[in-house]
C-alpha cells in the first residue's frame, strides 16, 4: 500500500488546485485584529459579569472548567461519577428497609380498636365503633389516614370519642 503509487499522480495535480483558492484580498490583514478584539471583548465580559466575579473569588473553578473543556478524560470522569451517584441514589431509594424510609414512617401505628380498648378512658366512656371513629380510614387521603392514630395517641388520657347524649324532652 504505497501512497506514492504513480496512478495517484494525476489526482495529486488536481488537488494542487485547492492551493490556488484564496480568500478575498486583504483578508488576513484584519484577521488577527478581529481575533484579538474578540478576546479582549470576552475578557471584559468575563470580568464584568457574575461569572467573572465567581471565577475571581474561586480561581480553582476556572481551572477545573478548563480542564473539563480541554481534556476529554476529565469530562468522561465527571460524567461517570455523576452517573454512579445517580445510580447509588436510585438503589438506596428503592430499598424497602432503607433508613430514609424508616425515618419517614411513624414509630408506631397502633390499631384504632386495640387503642380504644386499651385506654382506661375507653372502659368508662362509650366510644364509637372503629368504623365510625376512624372516619378517615375510608378516605383516600393517605396523610390524614396515617396521622390519625398519632393524634389519637396524643390524647391518650382524654377520651376523644363522641358520646351519645340523650336530648329527649323532659315534659316541655
Amino acid at each position, binding site marked *: 500500500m504505497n501512497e506514492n503509487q504513480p496512478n495517484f499522480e494525476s489526482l495529486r495535480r488536481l488537488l494542487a488546485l485547492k492551493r490556488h483558492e484564496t480568500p478575498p484580498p486583504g483578508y488576513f490583514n484584519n*484577521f488577527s485584529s478581529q481575533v*484579538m478584539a474578540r478576546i479582549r471583548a470576552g475578557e471584559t465580559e468575563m470580568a464584568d459579569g457574575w461569572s467573572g466575579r465567581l471565577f475571581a473569588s474561586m480561581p480553582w473553578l476556572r481551572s477545573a472548567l478548563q480542564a473539563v473543556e480541554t481534556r476529554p478524560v476529565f469530562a468522561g470522569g465527571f460524567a461517570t461519577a455523576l452517573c454512579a451517584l445517580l445510580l447509588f441514589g436510585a438503589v438506596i431509594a428503592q430499598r424497602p428497609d432503607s433508613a430514609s424510609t424508616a425515618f419517614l414512617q411513624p414509630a408506631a401505628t397502633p390499631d384504632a380498636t386495640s387503642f380504644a380498648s386499651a385506654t382506661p378512658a375507653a372502659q368508662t366512656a362509650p366510644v364509637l365503633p372503629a368504623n365510625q371513629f376512624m372516619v378517615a380510614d375510608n378516605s383516600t387521603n393517605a396523610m390524614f389516614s396515617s396521622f390519625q392514630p398519632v393524634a389519637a395517641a396524643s390524647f391518650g388520657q382524654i377520651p376523644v370519642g363522641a358520646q351519645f347524649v340523650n336530648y329527649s324532652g323532659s315534659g316541655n
Partner: protein
Amino acid sequence: MIMAEPVARNDSEPSAPADENVLVRRAREGDLEAYDELVQRYQERIYATVYHMTSNHEDANDLAQESFIKAFQALKSFKGGSSFYTWLYRIAVNKTINFLKQRKNRIHMSLNDLDFNAEHDPDLVALISDKTPRRDADLTELQEKLNAALLKLSEPHRLVVVLHDVQGLSHDEIAKVMNCNIGTVRSRLFYARQQLQAWLSDYLKPT
C-alpha cells in the same frame, strides 16, 4: 498568493523560529501582543485547513477565529508536550469536525476565487489540456467538482487528504494532530485517494 504552500517539515523542527516558546510563555501570562504575533504566524495555515475541510469561506472565517480564541483561553493547559502549532491544529481540527457533524445535512459551498497563478500552473494546465477526457472543463468547473468530491469523503479521510496533499504536512505531523498512529494515516490517505480518483475520473488525465 498561494495559500498554505506545502512545505516539508517535521515536528521536531517546526517552521517557527526559536522564540515561539517565549511568545507562548508570554501569551500564557496574559500578554496579548505576544498572542497577536502567534495568531499572525499561523492564521493562514489554520484558515486554509478549515477552509479546505468546509469548502465555505464564511464558516472557515468563524471557525478559524474561534479556534484561536479557544486556544488562548486554554493556553494555561498547554504543557508543551507537542509544538504549539500542532496543539493549535488539533484545536482547529476538532472544532471543525464538530461543526461538520452538526451541519451534516446542510452542506453549502462558498468557494474562494482561484488566484491568478492557477491558470499558469503547469500541473493544472496539463489537466485541462486536450488529453483530459473532459476537454471542455475549465478551472472553475474543476474546482467545484473537486470540492464536491472532497465533501463526499468522511471527515477523517478528508482531513488526511487536506493536511497531506493540500497543506503538505508529513504523516508524522498528521498522526499527532489526529491523535492516531502513522499506519492509520497512511491507510486513510490511500482509501481517500482511491475514492477521489473514482469520483473524479472524468477530470483526471489517464496515467
